[in-house]
């Protein structure tokens, strides 16, 4: 079963058509990086994968079922919000601005969602939390408040928080764009490890080095459509479209930037 599949996804905000028919399938254990200039619809595309944005046309299939919809009698019908909430537990999301809950400690940030979803006993949740804090390298920050952490640490905690629900798919929305340059690598390291462990990942990023080293495929999006879909080396070294070449030229690139 394809974990994540976008079928003919359209989305407009007012008169502005952000997505104009996107088709994309992410296979199990695959890491797909979405590249593209700002305003190209990358983030909107990612947001349709867990129903934060509703497609105007087309649909997204997550682990076999349509996100936020149910297919019956030849049409899609909205599912109740509680069912959508349940669907979302299978897909973790990491935001550009981290969005940790500032009034809760690191521990409570991690435990809030699984507690609400009653996913596992207290002891099971606690050991899951400890394992994840180790995995992101911040076991000593368990009782810290988010405001006392650096941006890189906050983002690593945000990744651990998303993993607490044991998702089958992880979405990353420019996870390093809000970080100071010296903090980028610690976050990318965690993401690389996650990819090596076999997580299915869809990553919107500007980190071409990460795309080259970690991605199985690179999707180049511009103007709300997928313009290129290729292995990273091929796209980064020989983009097939004019706009792909222009994008790589602007980014200053050649993907020379290596991530640790």
């Amino acid at each position, binding site marked *: 079963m394809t974990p994540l599949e976008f079928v003919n996804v359209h989305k407009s905000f007012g008169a502005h058509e952000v997505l104009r028919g996107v088709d994309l399938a992410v296979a199990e254990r695959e890491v797909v990086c979405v590249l593209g200039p700002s305003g190209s619809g990358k983030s909107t595309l990612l947001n349709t994968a*867990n129903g*934060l944005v509703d497609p105007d046309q087309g649909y997204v299939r997550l682990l076999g079922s349509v996100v936020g919809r149910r297919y019956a009698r030849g049409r899609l019908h909205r599912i109740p*919000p*509680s069912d959508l*909430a*349940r*669907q*979302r*537990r299978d*897909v*973790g*999301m990491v*935001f550009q*601005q981290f*969005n*940790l*809950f*500032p*009034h*809760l*400690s690191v*521990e*409570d940030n991690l*435990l*809030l*969602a699984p*507690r*609400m*979803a*009653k996913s*596992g*006993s*207290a*002891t099971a*949740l*606690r050991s899951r939390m400890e394992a994840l804090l180790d995995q992101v390298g911040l076991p000593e920050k368990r*009782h*810290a*408040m988010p*405001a*006392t952490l650096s941006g890189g640490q906050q983002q690593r905690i945000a990744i651990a*928080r*998303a993993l607490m*629900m044991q998702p089958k798919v992880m979405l990353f929305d420019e996870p390093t764009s809000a970080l100071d340059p010296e903090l980028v690598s610690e976050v990318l390291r965690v993401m690389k490890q996650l990819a090596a462990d076999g997580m299915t990942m869809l990553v919107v990023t500007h980190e071409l080095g990460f795309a080259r080293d970690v991605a199985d495929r690179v999707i180049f999006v511009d103007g709300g459509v997928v313009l290129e879909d290729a292995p990273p080396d091929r796209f980064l070294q020989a983009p097939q479209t004019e706009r792909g070449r222009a994008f790589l030229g602007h980014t200053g690139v050649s993907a020379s930037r290596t991530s640790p």
Partner: protein
Amino acid sequence: MTATRTAGGTEGAEEVIPPSVQTAEKVRWGRWIAAAVVLVVLVQVVLAAAVNENIEWSVVGDYLFDPQVLHGLQTTLLLAVSAEVITIVLGLLLVYARLSSNPLLRGFAGAYVWFFRSVPLIVQILLLGNLALFAPDVSVSIPFTSVVLFSQDTNDLIPAATAAVLALALHDAAYNAEIFRSGIGSVPEGQRRAASALGLTWWQTQRKVVLPQAFPVIIPPAASQFITLLKSTALVSVIAVPDLLTEAQTISNRNARVMELLFVATAWFMVMVAVASLAVRWLERRSATRNRRLATKPVEVVVQP
């Protein structure tokens, strides 16, 4: 630097200033004058009250703990607290109606806030207290039929005290709705998105993410609104609810000690507001230190069934 006289220098002579020199305190005449004026006025006022032969201070003392006054005090507190409870619930309902995507609910909440903020509270109290003049009895019937399920005399159903609580609560809810709205609006959209993405339902998101963050923003204005409500209870004397002021006036109607009993009521209002202010300060400090406490709180995993 040593002081040297430079003959013919345009700057003139440089004085000898010891290194240990200090700046002299300036005499602030303005302060002393202002303080003196205030002091004189205060002494005048206190003297005028204390030695005024039209006021007998012992009477104030006599009635301060009079059973009737204490009963009025109890009524006032009961009015304020029950009105506050209703107003919090109503205010929350209104703010969520106002933020909803349903245009009818939004419109209703907007109209509610507009109406109850534009009509003076005393008018609202009089309107509700005299509801029987407008609708002699209240009945519940099935719409568009003549089947009456329930019917009762308005004055029996809504006694003056209930009308007073309702008037205070309905009026205050309009203000509280606006206070809650600004509090809830102060929580960034990213918080809601993160909660949704984690699979929290709308209600869980409000309870665990939005409201706890809105709370510290809401407390100071909501508290000062409560203090206003506390003082506004005195207005219910116009529909003969036996509150503190009404009881004080009932006594003064008997013994003609008008000023003395007004002083009694004043003293109790000052005590109530002082206590309420202290409680507010405590709440504010508590929510300010909450983050620090949470940071050091021992692990406490809630056992889920």
